[in-house]
Every structure is written in structure tokens, then in C-alpha cells.
């Protein structure tokens, strides 16, 4: 990340620019109250105003923050503290969810309000108005670059966090019995999602030393060759770790599609229902499932009371 010195050089801001900004600032800051009044009068006409600034407690705080913002602007001291301050302003606006375009338009409007009367009135007396506006413009561009950069960076982080949460929510892997995983798959399974699911399932298999994983695909709207290949890859990978996978929840329509597309699912263990898959999985783990009293003598039973399984 560039230093304050480098940023100044990049934006072509020299001492004369900062002197002009300071000089105008000393005169103009007296009218800060009027500036903010006009700025908020404009803001009220925007569709976002009510949502972001409609709260009575928010408005005085925003007034105060904008006062500090312009105070720092007209101080004309571009150092590391100034850079950090501008980046924080960008980040804060990204965090509250203000659209970047609205944020940029608002600062452009505020800049207009400072400069629209350039050359007229007492504030501009004796100043080179064109040069002063140009110098303020350079500083404003620096501010916008810093604030927008931080804004985009923060938004990117937020999106990445949301994706992680979404992934965690969309693949809730449960250990439903000792060494038995249940992975309900819901929604579209594309290459990225399939890779994420595979990663999550394999990690869980390693963590809990699972012997069987049930991939329940009832919630997948479309099973085509690509989805089937993703499922085959997941099952192959779990098998290499010593964990058999069962794909459950195949609807008759999905079964028909698989046959029509000629997808080779011979090496996939599939069942129509989740209960069939559970029964198969528990049998693999050495348990028999049945009504109380109906389980064969000697078999580890899930009928009312759990017997000692192969792993237990």
C-alpha cells in the first residue's frame, strides 16, 4: 500500500496546492453549517436518504462526522493519519451497505457545493479561484481514490464472509450416528459447489473417521451428466479414505434421466429414499434395524436399545 508521500506524488499534489486549500478553508469553514444544511437538503431528495439517514439519532452524528471530514480536508495535511482516516470513512460506508455509486455522488455533490460559487463572494476575494478549485479537485480525487479503494476492499471481504456462511449453510454435514455422515445437498451443484462439498465431506470423514456417508440429493433440482460426475468423484474420494458413500433421494425422474443420458453409475451405491440409505449404512456399520424384539439374536440392534456395534 502506498505511503502518504507516494499518494501525494501520484495525484500531483504539491505544497502550493495545499496552501491554496488551506487558504480557502480558513475562510469557507465559517460557513460549514450552511454547507451541511444545503448538502442534507439535497440528500433528502435522494431515494437512499430515508433508509440510511432517516433515523433521528443518526443525523446529528453524520453532521458531526462530515464536519470533521471537511475540517481535515481544509487542514491540508496529507500524512499517514489522513490516509488512514479517509480509508476508514470508505470502510464505514461500505459496512452500512450504502451503494458505492451513491457514496461517490454524495461527495461529488458536496464538492460542488464548496466550489459552485468560485470567484464570487467574500470567501473568494483575493484568491486565484481557478487554481484553488483545481487544487481542491486534486485533493478530492485523492480522497475518493482512498475511500473507494477501502469501500471496495471492505465489500469484497463482506462478500467472501457471506459466501463462507452460505457454503456452511448449504452443506450442513451431520454426524447422524457414530461414523455415519449425512450430507443433504440442496440447490444447484456446479463445479465450484461440488469442489466445496467434496472438500467439506472429505474433511469431515477425516475428522470423525466416518465409514459411511449418505449424500441425499432430493434437493437438487437437476441431475445431469455434470452433476452425476461430481457425485461420482465425491464417492470415489471418500472411498479412498475408507468411507463408502451412498447417494440417496433419487426420484424416478432422476433415475430416468440417468438412464437416458447413459451415465455410468454402476459404481455408485444409490437408493430411492433416505430411509433405505440409512438402513444400508447402518447394516454396513454392523447394526440391524427393526421393531423391538424382531432383531435377530446376537445382532447389534437399533431396536429400542443400541447394541455394541463393530466400532463401539
Amino acid at each position, binding site marked *: 500500500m502506498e505511503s502518504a508521500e507516494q499518494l501525494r506524488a501520484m495525484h500531483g499534489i504539491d505544497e502550493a496546492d495545499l496552501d491554496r486549500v488551506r487558504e480557502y478553508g480558513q475562510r469557507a469553514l465559517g460557513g460549514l453549517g450552511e454547507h451541511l444544511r444545503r448538502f442534507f437538503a439535497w440528500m433528502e431528495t435522494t431515494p437512499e436518504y430515508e433508509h440510511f439517514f432517516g433515523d433521528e439519532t443518526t443525523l446529528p452524528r453524520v453532521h458531526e462526522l462530515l464536519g470533521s471530514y471537511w475540517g481535515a480536508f481544509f487542514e491540508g495535511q496529507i500524512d499517514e493519519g489522513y490516509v488512514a482516516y479517509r480509508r476508514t470513512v470508505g470502510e464505514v460506508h461500505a459496512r452500512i451497505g450504502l451503494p458505492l455509486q451513491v457514496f461517490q455522488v454524495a461527495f461529488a455533490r458536496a464538492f460542488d457545493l464548496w466550489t459552485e460559487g468560485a470567484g464570487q463572494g467574500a470567501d473568494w476575494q483575493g484568491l486565484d479561484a481557478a487554481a484553488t478549485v483545481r487544487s481542491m479537485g486534486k485533493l478530492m480525487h485523492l480522497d475518493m481514490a482512498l475511500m473507494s479503494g477501502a469501500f471496495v476492499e471492505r465489500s469484497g471481504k463482506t462478500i467472501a464472509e457471506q459466501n463462507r456462511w452460505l457454503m456452511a449453510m448449504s452443506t450442513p454435514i451431520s454426524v447422524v450416528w457414530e461414523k455415519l455422515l449425512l450430507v443433504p445437498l440442496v440447490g444447484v451443484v456446479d463445479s465450484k459447489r461440488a469442489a466445496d462439498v*467434496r*472438500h467439506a465431506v*472429505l*474433511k469431515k*470423514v*477425516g475428522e470423525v*473417521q466416518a*465409514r459411511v456417508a449418505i449424500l441425499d440429493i432430493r434437493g437438487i433440482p437437476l441431475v445431469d451428466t455434470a452433476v452425476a460426475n461430481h457425485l461420482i*468423484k465425491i464417492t*470415489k*474420494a*471418500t*472411498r*479412498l*479414505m*475408507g*468411507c463408502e458413500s451412498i447417494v440417496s433421494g433419487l426420484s424416478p425422474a432422476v433415475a430416468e434421466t440417468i438412464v437416458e443420458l447413459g451415465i455410468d453409475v454402476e459404481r455408485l451405491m444409490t437408493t430411492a429414499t433416505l430411509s433405505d440409505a440409512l438402513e444400508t449404512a447402518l447394516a454396513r456399520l454392523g447394526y440391524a434395524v427393526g421393531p423391538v424384539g424382531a432383531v435377530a439374536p446376537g445382532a447389534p440392534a437399533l431396536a429400542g436399545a443400541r447394541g455394541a456395534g463393530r466400532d463401539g
Partner: protein
Amino acid sequence: MGSFDLSNAPIQRFAGVLVVTPPPDLTGEEWLFLRRAMLERYRSEGSKQVVVDLGRVDLIDTEACEQLRRMARSVRVLGGQCALAAVQAAVASALVDLEVDLDGVDAFLSTEEAIDALGGRRA
């Protein structure tokens, strides 16, 4: 890791089953040495079951995958059985992505389990 000679290769025998434990970060050449060492022990000790314990291998490249496939294949060609044990998630993923043909090679969660299973088959 430096090259090792055939006499100190990480191969042990438990209950009549040869257990090969590849160290992490083996080069292709070292995999080749390990395979040769394993085949030598297989021949000299008359073992018919081999377990490759991949518990210490957390990454695997194309060359290592190929050497692993050849290791399993050579045991099968000699009429024996080869199984994988303690395969880590990243390694399992890589083996699938690189389409390494390990059909017919059983895999187990742990080496103990593999020894039990293969030893049982022999009996």
C-alpha cells in the same frame, strides 16, 4: 528428504502384512526406491498383503500418484493384495482429480483396520 537405501526403507511387517509408510515430500525417484524396496521385501518374506499407510503424506503430485498406482498394480500382478490406509482428504481429492486408476485397491480408515482386514483374508 534425501534418498534412502533399500535396507532402511520405511517398511515393516505386522501379522504377516507388509506395511509401507511413505514419508512426506518424497521425490519421484524416492517413490521408485520405495516401490523396489517393497517388492524386494514382498519376494524375500513371501508376504501376499501390502498396506500403504499414507497417514504422513498430506500432498501428492502427478508423479507420486503414478508411483503409488504402480506400487499397487505390481502387488496385484504378483498375485497379492494391496490396500491404502489413512489417506488424507487432500490426497484423496488429488487421486480423484488426477484420475489415478486404483480400481480394485481397497482403502481403510487406519492401518490397524487394514492389517485386520488383509490378515483376515489371508487366514
